[in-house]
């Protein structure tokens, strides 16, 4: 419900004019006189009158300018990664118009941020696919060639067999690493076999590499997710597990998927050392939040019941994504 009011200029003028009028009327109709030099009682009356005038003036001006203060506070706090913050437009004066314009500006900024974020992530994914292909096709082929050459040399020079065996083992380890990095960069399992299989592979590899025990709980069926939403879930799970390995000092991590309210919920909870207060969000955590936002998801990073950290991501199922216009 909006109220039509006088413009701000006239309201401030009216406040001051009213006060001055009241003072003038009081001076005219009251028996107060001010002598020179001023008497103590007269000085007291003047000071009291002044204080009352200032208090009333401050109260009325505060009412007039209060919304501007709230607007300034909101401007300082606004975070485009947490959309939906708006101010109520309570009146049709200059302040109301500024608030409405600010709300429209937030609409536009959130839309533009979403568009640019989507383009950046698409470019990032394309670059990852390119690097993964180069690693697999170029570096992998070269290493395979080196391995074959080492085999030939080992047959031709049996006296160096021990040294060559060590070299071959090193090349095989390098090949495994190239395949692992390539798979992390381009989750082919996600494309071909879906989210549950991709997360199963991811958590299996994570458990092997990090020595952290992984418990999985994936249901037999889940609501359908759009490909870009599946990718966001996969990447956020990947980043969460990376954080567990790097920072959590955890011995166990639980990864679950469950159907929600026309949505799918991912949980990654560890039993590590957790964080004090609230986590400082930069780099990886900001990137996770951005990915969640771009697919209309909700991401919470909070203390886990086991004492570590829990990442909870809820993403909309396909029909909801389409309704939101996420492409």
């Amino acid at each position, binding site marked *: 419900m909006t109220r039509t009011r006088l413009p701000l200029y006239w309201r401030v003028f009216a406040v001051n004019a009213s006060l001055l009028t009241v003072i003038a009327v009081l001076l005219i109709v009251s028996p107060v006189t001010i002598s020179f030099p001023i008497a103590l009682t007269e000085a007291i009356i003047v000071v009291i009158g002044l204080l009352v005038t200032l208090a009333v003036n401050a109260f009325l001006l505060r009412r007039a300018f209060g919304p501007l203060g709230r607007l300034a506070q*909101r401007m300082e*706090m606004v975070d485009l990664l*947490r*959309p*939906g*913050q*708006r*101010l*109520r437009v309570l009146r049709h004066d200059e302040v109301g118009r500024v608030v409405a314009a600010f709300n429209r500006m937030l609409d536009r900024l959130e839309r533009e941020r979403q568009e640019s974020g989507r383009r950046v992530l698409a470019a990032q994914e394309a670059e990852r696919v390119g690097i993964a292909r180069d690693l697999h096709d170029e570096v992998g082929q070269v290493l395979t060639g080196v391995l074959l050459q080492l085999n030939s040399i080992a047959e031709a020079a049996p006296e160096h067999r021990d040294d060559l065996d060590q070299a071959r083992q090193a090349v095989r380890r390098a090949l495994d690493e190239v395949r692992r990095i390539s798979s992390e960069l381009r989750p082919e399992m996600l494309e071909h076999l879906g989210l549950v299989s991709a997360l199963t592979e991811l958590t299996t590899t994570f458990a092997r590499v990090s020595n952290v025990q992984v418990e999985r709980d994936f249901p037999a069926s889940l609501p359908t997710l759009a490909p870009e939403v599946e990718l966001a879930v996969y990447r956020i799970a990947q980043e969460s597990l990376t954080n567990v390995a790097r920072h959590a000092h955890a011995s166990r991590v639980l990864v679950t998927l*469950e*159907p*929600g*309210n026309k*949505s799918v*919920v991912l949980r990654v909870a560890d039993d590590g050392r957790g964080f*004090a*207060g*609230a986590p400082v969000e930069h780099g990886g955590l900001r990137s996770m939040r951005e990915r969640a936002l771009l697919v209309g*998801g*909700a*991401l*919470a*990073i*909070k*203390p886990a019941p086991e004492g570590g950290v829990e990442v*909870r991501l*809820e993403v909309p199922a396909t029909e909801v994504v389409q309704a939101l216009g996420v492409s």
Partner: protein
Amino acid sequence: MRGTLMCAVTGSAESDDALALGADLSERLGLRLVLAHALDELDEVDDGDYGASLMEATRQGAELLAQLAHEHGVADRAEKRVAVGEPAALLGQIAAEEAADVIVVGARARGWRKRLESNLADQLETETPVPVLIAPPRRRSARETRS
């Protein structure tokens, strides 16, 4: 799970009404229940150590939530969130993070001094697009009301 209901918990009698309603509704409708406690900015910082004061305040907030969850019989199913800062902004933020479908808050506190304080439900209206449900005050004794 059919959705998420978030209860704003302040420790006041009015927020207790919200928790009672939230616990009841979430059970009847099969909703996930999240209890959120937002502490206002820290007034006192121990020996200038903001981090330690923050941890202590967070610990006390978590204890309050655990105690209230136990009193309302939802200790085993309620998820708990504690945050320090501007309450309405933080509650809006938690509601977004938890994909809350509705936020339950207590009614405006009684008493002339409390009436002067800004209403949490009004503040939340500008912080979040999530609908806010105001729990009606339950009947309580005059002594309880005064405290």
